[in-house]
């Protein structure tokens, strides 16, 4: 069915009764919002709908108790949006975040790699030798066995570089 106003598909169907007469209108979302003032929040993600529903009908409200004292976000709000509110949340929710991080990052829960010189100055081991040489050597053996000499040569260079670096 097409919108009464334009050629887009009609997805909003209104029935009005005026002076005992029934008037039907078929509109697309834009026209409905513009002409009728019908607020359409399209595409509410299904997980948001479900979360709202489950939250409203279960004892989960209790969890709302954990709140960041700096940005005010609750653990439940974070779980719903997937986004944290400030850097302090990583400390505030550390216990709850750790298993989540491990799931997302192949079991890891400690940073390795670049450290900013000023803000990261203390508490972190400086950059360790970053290329896993034993892994590369294993790959080199594999490449040689497969007679893939081009790749073997590249791996050899990478190992040399890592060992000298």
């Amino acid at each position, binding site marked *: 069915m097409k919108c009464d106003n334009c050629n887009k598909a009609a997805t909003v169907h209104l029935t009005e009764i005026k002076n005992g007469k029934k008037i039907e209108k078929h509109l697309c979302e834009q026209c409905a919002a513009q002409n009728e003032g019908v607020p359409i929040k399209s595409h509410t993600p299904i997980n948001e709908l479900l979360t709202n529903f489950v939250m409203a009908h279960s004892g989960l409200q209790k969890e709302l108790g954990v709140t960041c004292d700096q940005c005010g976000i609750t653990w439940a709000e974070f779980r719903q*949006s997937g986004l944290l509110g400030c850097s302090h949340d*990583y400390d505030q929710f550390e216990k709850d*975040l750790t298993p989540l991080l491990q799931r997302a990052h192949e079991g890891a*829960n*400690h940073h*390795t*790699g*670049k450290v900013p010189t000023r803000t990261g100055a203390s508490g972190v081991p400086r950059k360790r030798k970053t*290329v896993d040489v034993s892994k590369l050597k294993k790959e080199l053996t594999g490449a040689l066995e497969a007679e893939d000499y081009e790749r073997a040569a590249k791996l050899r260079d990478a190992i040399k570089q890592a060992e000298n670096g």
Partner: protein
Amino acid sequence: MKLSDLTNHAGEWLRGSGPQSEIVISSRIRLARNVSGVPFLTRATRPQRQVLEARVRDILLGAQVSPQTLYVDLEHAPEIDRQLLVERHLISKQHAAAEGARGVAIGENETLSIMINEEDHLRIQVLRSGLQLEQAWDQINAIDDALEAKLDFAFHSRFGYLTACPTNVGTGIRVSVMLHLPALKLTGEIEKVFRAAKDLKLAVRGLYGEGTEATGDFYQISNQTTLGKSEEEIISEFRLVVIPKIIEYEYHARKALINDHTIALDDKVGRALGLLRSARLMASEETLFLLSHLRMGVNMGRVKDIDIRTINELFLLTQPAHLQKISGKKLEGDVRRAARADYIRQRLNGN
């Protein structure tokens, strides 16, 4: 430099000149950074957001980070300009569609773009043609150092660089390699790549990253793990293991097509070329699909009179915002499809 200067040519990453460029379209690295002491964007107030945008913009335009930077204020930019930047992979779809104070700084021949107030305060991106991950890392690392001299980034002794979404925490790095894999698609073996990528905890996405479908046989492979592995480890894994393997599979599939299905292959390529050279109305999805087959034909030596660079440019310049910028007017529906078909015919027949 003005935004309109960008439209008539492709960015460095589409020149088609980098290493392994037959299969590897581009190498991209992005770093997520947040400024210490300012809430993440979900919790930042309007003034906080505005102040941050102005502060970072001033630093970026201060020339010490990167010379000749073009800054686009996305809050006030017209929709078509934002769409143009998405088509050029200089901003994300989300950044184009968002609201409030935000912007992007573009520099170094479009290989560098720095988004302000996207999901994180800063999203630094380097995008280069072909397989150039090491060069991309050197470039972005230097930019990150230059920024760090002016800004305190939120950093945690245990969790590393802090990001709004915990899936980016640690290095904050996302390495993405865009691959053109038409033969694996045609031979039905692309599923194997997906499975292997999944085993290696890598994501496979479409042309425009998160939430987009793979169209025109383009696949973007990216890391998902950002914590517990250093930047160099993640990059070497891509450079030495993952990408060479996929390239090898694709070449293998191409060889199989030439040896066992020569006529079917030439038919696909010939049909693509025939349609592109003759059609009068061309939709953007069909264009991607046909250009993909033509690109494969040129790379496999089945079509000799067309330059790969022309095809790479057509991928970009036939997209809606580019097409409208080139023709200098708003185009919709059949008018746009006709303009697209005209432009393609002109480029392919005049070649």
